[in-house]
């Protein structure tokens, strides 16, 4: 039920982001979702791509610091309070959200949100129990 995400350490200097996307493009890797967290000195680029292992290897070879983490993709109703409903379930179960970002594509009529939890197993359990649709990795990579 989990989705693989790669994250890349990016120094705050011009051209680094372009280099990442160029490297991935050269290998035919397609980016499915992304989020960039930044501080004054550095940023962390998080990506969900169609070919995770190839992307990781390619970036490592080009000298980037890369690691792989597991995140959870959740289908969220695209209407007011849609996201609130999900967060409320998580809060009640005391599952902490480290960060989250929205997926580009929609799933049917619903939005897709990527969550990074401190305890993903517990999060998946409570979400499923509450009839929230947690998407499979294979589904996300090819969306």
């Amino acid at each position, binding site marked *: 039920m989990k989705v693989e995400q790669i*994250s890349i350490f990016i120094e705050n200097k011009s051209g680094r982001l372009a280099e990442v996307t160029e490297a991935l493009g050269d290998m035919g890797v397609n980016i499915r979702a992304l989020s960039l967290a930044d501080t004054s*000195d*550095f940023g*962390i680029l998080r990506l969900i791509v169609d070919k995770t292992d190839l992307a990781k290897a390619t970036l490592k070879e080009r*000298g980037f*610091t890369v*690691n792989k*983490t597991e995140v959870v993709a959740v289908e969220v109703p695209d209407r007011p309070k849609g996201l609130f409903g999900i967060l409320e379930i998580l809060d009640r179960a005391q599952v902490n959200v480290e960060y989250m970002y929205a997926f580009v594509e929609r799933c049917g009529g619903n939005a897709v949100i990527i969550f990074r939890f401190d305890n993903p197993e517990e999060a998946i359990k409570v979400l499923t129990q509450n009839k929230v649709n947690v998407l499979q990795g294979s589904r996300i990579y090819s969306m």
Partner: protein
Amino acid sequence: MIWNDDFETLPREAIESLQLKRLKQTLERVYATVPFYRESFQKAGVTPDAIKSLDDLRRLPFTLKQDMRDNYPYGLFAVPLDQIVRIHASSGTTGKPTVVGYTRRDIDMWAELMARSFVAAGAHRGDVIHNAYGYGLFTGGLGAHYGAEKLGASVIPMSGGNTKKQIMIMQDFGSTILTCTPSYSLYLAEAAADEGINIRDLKLRVGIFGAEPWTEEIRNEIEEKLNIKAIDIYGLSEILGPGVAIECHQAQHGLHIWEDHFIPEIINPDTGEVLPVGETGELVITTITKEGIPMIRYRTRDITRLIPEPCICGRTHVRIARMSGRSDDMLIIRGVNVFPSQIESVLVGIDGIEPHYQLIVDREENLDTLEIQVEVNEKAFSDEIKVLQDLSDRIRREIKDVLGVTSKVRLVEPKSITRSEGKAQRVIDRRKGK
């Protein structure tokens, strides 16, 4: 094993009487042949015959690097040029280089001291010595080379640079001993890994590292990464070149300085006063056998102390502690004395960062600033910002604890700090001219 049992294990009294005899001879010679020394002795009101004991040495004036520049190029030579068979020069970062000349006997003596040093480090005949010190005006390459030949080992005159080829040769030729700067050894390990070679699997057994100050923590790191014994060697071109002092592989604690050729003193760098044995200060060296360019009380600017206790290896020559820095490397940041080696000790103790760093010192609104750039590796990297911020906070806190100086820590990408193939450039001081 000891290369020259007769001299390396001389009893203390014998060393001292030999030193006094050789010192007197040297003083008479320089007084007669080098106008600079005659004038400076006269100014200090001493003549060579006034030196009757080793303690009297302190009555003589110091010789400074500036004196070498003032007498550029041959003014301090004590023999005519037709007796000089080799000339070296140190890099002149500020203006003219300092020039040194060697007679044939000097070259032989140097080879002897380097051979002693190799043996002290655990090398022997049959070893393949991969000499990655630069060949040229710098004394490192040729100095180690002649010693390796004297020892009877097989020396590969690699010189610096061309790192990929170094790794290929190390692997194919079965190098067992590596000689280079400590920072270059780590760079080699990293470059080997990039080639898919685990440097730990090569035949390397011992590394002999010098020409820049390094710490005990970096030693551990090198020993672990290269799977070798890392030995500290000391030398400077003004005195001889590499082979002035070396650690023995038995103790790896303090460097035996070859006292039948040099007299070490430790002084207070501010007052010039000689410090009691065991106290830390600036190392001053007098050469007592060199013919080409004898040095009387040369101020090395290196900070160390003498270790007079007997050593387990059996050598009787006094040891100098690992250099804690150079008095001219010392940074004064907001009035606090900071040696780059202190920062290095802190950084090496933290997991997840590479042993490559750079210090950027600047001045903003009349206040000194210190920025420490360190490379993050995969162990420390996380997809969460707070993990990285905790890392830089931790570095900042530990630096503050150790040095009492506030710094800004900047995490940078691996391999983004320039690797040096010779001496590492650790400090960029932008305050000059401000």
